């Protein structure tokens, strides 16, 4: 069974005269342990697709299957629960909670899931930060880390509940070349090593080509 299946997805954006058909029947599948890029020009529907897959938006038509569960008609709370358990997000900006340390930021999704004890959560968060090269900065606040380090904390946070799917929206868009390269390599390695799928929206063709598969989008459809 595929990790994610998208079938004939449609989405309109805007109201009245500005209303446009942003996604026009998109279908594809995502397999575990592989990396995918969604590439295309601005306005091609990349981010719209990513947010629909991430259950942060609702399609006008079509279906999104996470495992064997169709999610497009779930309630808000049900979609939120699916996000918590099966998805991890990395955005262009790290969005760390500045009142929390790196360790505490990584623990936030685990606290919500509520499956681990406090000690187990701490240990796991420390391991994840170690895996992204921040084992010695677990007690630092987000504001005490560099841009690249903050994004790596965000990656560790996305991995907190061992999600099957990591969704990344321009994860390197706000980083310099060296840091961008490092962050992508980290995401790619983790996805391959842990059997997780990475679906990344990127303007960067070089990074997109380093993925196992590239979906090219234009005018709301995936090009063959």
């Amino acid at each position, binding site marked *: 069974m595929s990790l994610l299946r998208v079938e004939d997805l449609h989405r309109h954006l805007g109201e009245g005269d500005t209303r446009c058909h942003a996604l026009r029947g998109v279908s594809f599948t995502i397999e575990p342990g592989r990396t995918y890029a969604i590439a295309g020009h601005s306005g091609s529907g990349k981010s719209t697709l990513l947010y629909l897959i991430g259950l942060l938006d609702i399609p006008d038509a079509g279906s999104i299957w996470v495992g064997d569960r169709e999610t497009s008609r779930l309630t808000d709370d049900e979609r939120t629960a699916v*996000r*918590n*358990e099966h998805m991890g*997000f990395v955005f262009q900006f790290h969005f760390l909670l500045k009142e*929390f340390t790196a360790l505490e930021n990584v623990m936030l999704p685990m606290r919500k*899931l509520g499956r681990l004890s406090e000690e187990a959560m701490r240990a796991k968060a420390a391991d994840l930060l170690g895996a992204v090269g921040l084992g010695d900065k677990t007690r630092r606040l987000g504001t005490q880390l560099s841009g690249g380090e903050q994004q790596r904390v965000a990656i560790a946070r996305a991995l907190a509940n061992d999600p099957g799917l990591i969704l990344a929206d321009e994860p390197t868009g706000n980083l310099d070349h060296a840091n961008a390269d490092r962050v992508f390599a980290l995401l790619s390695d983790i996805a391959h090593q842990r059997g997780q799928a990475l679906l990344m929206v990127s303007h960067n063709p070089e990074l997109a080509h380093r993925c196992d598969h590239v979906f090219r989008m234009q005018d709301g459809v995936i090009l063959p």
Partner: protein
Amino acid sequence: MSPALLIALRFLGARKRAMLMSLTGIVFGVAFFVITQAQTAGFEAYFIKTILGVNGMVRIEDRIQSTRAMTATEGSSFAIAVEGSVKYIPGVQHAKAVTDALKGFPEVTAASPVIRGNATLIANFREYDTKPYGIDLGTFLNVSDLETQIIDGSMKAFGESPYALIVGSRIAKRMNLQVGDSVLLDGAGEPQRFRVAAVFETGIDQVDRERVYLHLPAIRTLLNKPTGASFIQLNLLDPELAPALAPRIQEALGHSTMAWQEREKTWLQVFSVLRISSALTISTIIFISGLGMFNTLVMIVVDKTREIAILRSMGYTRADISRIFMLQGGIVVALGVTLGCAAAALGTYTLSHIPIRIRGIFASDHFVVLWDPWHYVAAAVIATVVVLIASYFPSRRAARLEPGAVIRGSSS
């Protein structure tokens, strides 16, 4: 600790100064609310204690005679009841029979007949109009606090002499009377000599400047009233029983009977209005603090829009987000109520030790306060309701944020 509580605690620091101002307002609001209530309720309770100690819980006075008449057509069985007015015959003519009948009311713990009249007190070449009260000392002490109102002389001296007199403090001052002085009382045209055995002070100006106590046999002679009583003063198991009991006694015994609540209605209403007025005034401090809390939370919601969106993306539900902001209000109000109640207790204690001479409706040489846990409960409830309402709207706004729209807006 729940994740919502943890996040709420951390977010509280986001607007420290504004949050501290709201907290301070709640502390002061709760403290002032309790202190003013303790003070007004304290004065009211002390007034009630004083008035019960002077005039008793219930008084049985004039006999009621119904003037209802039946008119009928002569030679016919047809009759019409005509509602007439009632007629009051002054005093209690058969005081002993009424007192015996009161034994059928278990709420009544003591009853004492009193004869009241008017007499001129003559001493030191001066005359003074007084209202002598003839009492049966043995029973009257069970329906009044006369014994504790003595400020000079002794009750023992009064009890030992049939022609002893207890005078009000204002009379003693006005007539320059000392314990042991001899005075004349002229009630029915034949002045009689009495000796001042004691001076009493109730703090009620009108009582202290016109009332003198004599023995019942002495006043009968003075006022030429060989039988009956002006009224019978009662003591009950509980002062709060009086309003229900008085009509029953009136119905059963046929005498006008008045509870202290009815008798002192005017003053009780004054105290009630004062208490409500001060509660409303002080509550505005809490309301303003609630408004401050509302503003602070709205600012935090605006500041934390992206954080709320990321929390939603990682699995926090709308209810979780709402809870985070409601908890912030809850934490502030819990802290504010705790500190406010502590400050209130300290303030009430300090106030009760501030010296102030009060005479007029009661006698006190310091502020009178009432320690009532319900004042604290009321303040806590008002503060909690105000702050939770103030927190509800920002929390709802936070919960309604669409994470996708916020994150895309931030990224673009």
